[in-house]
């Protein structure tokens, strides 16, 4: 079974601060996805990274896929209260029918 560990589990910061959350595994993934989930809702896809070393930017969010495709990071610049939520990474394995394995999530709270 492939496992994804996310850190930190909880993060509480002030508006305007920068932060990085991590997603690590000992397994290689075909691609890695980041989702954001708000209370009472399902996860919403933010980005998919496919190539080792790939960096993608989405406004103030920067996603990086590790060179070996085993880990990923999400960096948020100048966090805003609207960034509050549960951030989930999910690894996809093409050898397992493209099944997604989710990490445990990082719960972010941005205080005004």
């Amino acid at each position, binding site marked *: 079974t492939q496992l994804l560990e996310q850190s930190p*589990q909880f993060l509480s910061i002030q508006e305007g601060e920068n932060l990085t959350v991590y997603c690590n595994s000992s397994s290689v993934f075909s*691609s890695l996805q980041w989702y954001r989930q708000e209370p009472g809702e399902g996860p919403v896809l933010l980005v*998919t990274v496919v190539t080792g070393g790939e960096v993608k930017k989405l406004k103030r969010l920067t996603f990086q896929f590790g060179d070996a495709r085993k880990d990923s990071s999400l960096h948020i610049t100048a966090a805003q209260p609207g960034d509050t939520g549960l951030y989930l990474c999910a690894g996809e394995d093409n050898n397992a029918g493209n099944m997604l394995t989710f990490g445990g999530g990082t719960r972010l709270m941005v205080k005004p």
Partner: protein
Amino acid sequence: EAGVVQSPRYKIIEKKQPVAFWCNPISGHNTLYWYRQNLGQGPELLIRYENEEAVDDSQLPKDRFSAERLKGVDSTLKIQPAELGDSAVYLCASSFGTSGTDTQYFGPGTRLTVL
């Protein structure tokens, strides 16, 4: 375009009672997924359908859980009998296909509480 619809949104039952969840995927999406998300954790896949065929149900506790997707559209997930440990959010998701470029769209989930 309507998203993935799930009902009910909340369900409270006593242990040993049966319960069923319903999911209507996005129109045209051939692949449907049921996930379970325990409190403070990420979703875990229970079963995946391609059209009406269950292609991955290795994580479905088959002694008490069952699922069906008649006509390859709507799906129901049933638990009978429910146990205390079944309390969780049950998420349904759908995608057009199963390639790496096919985004999974999630519904809002059904929050089950077993007393």
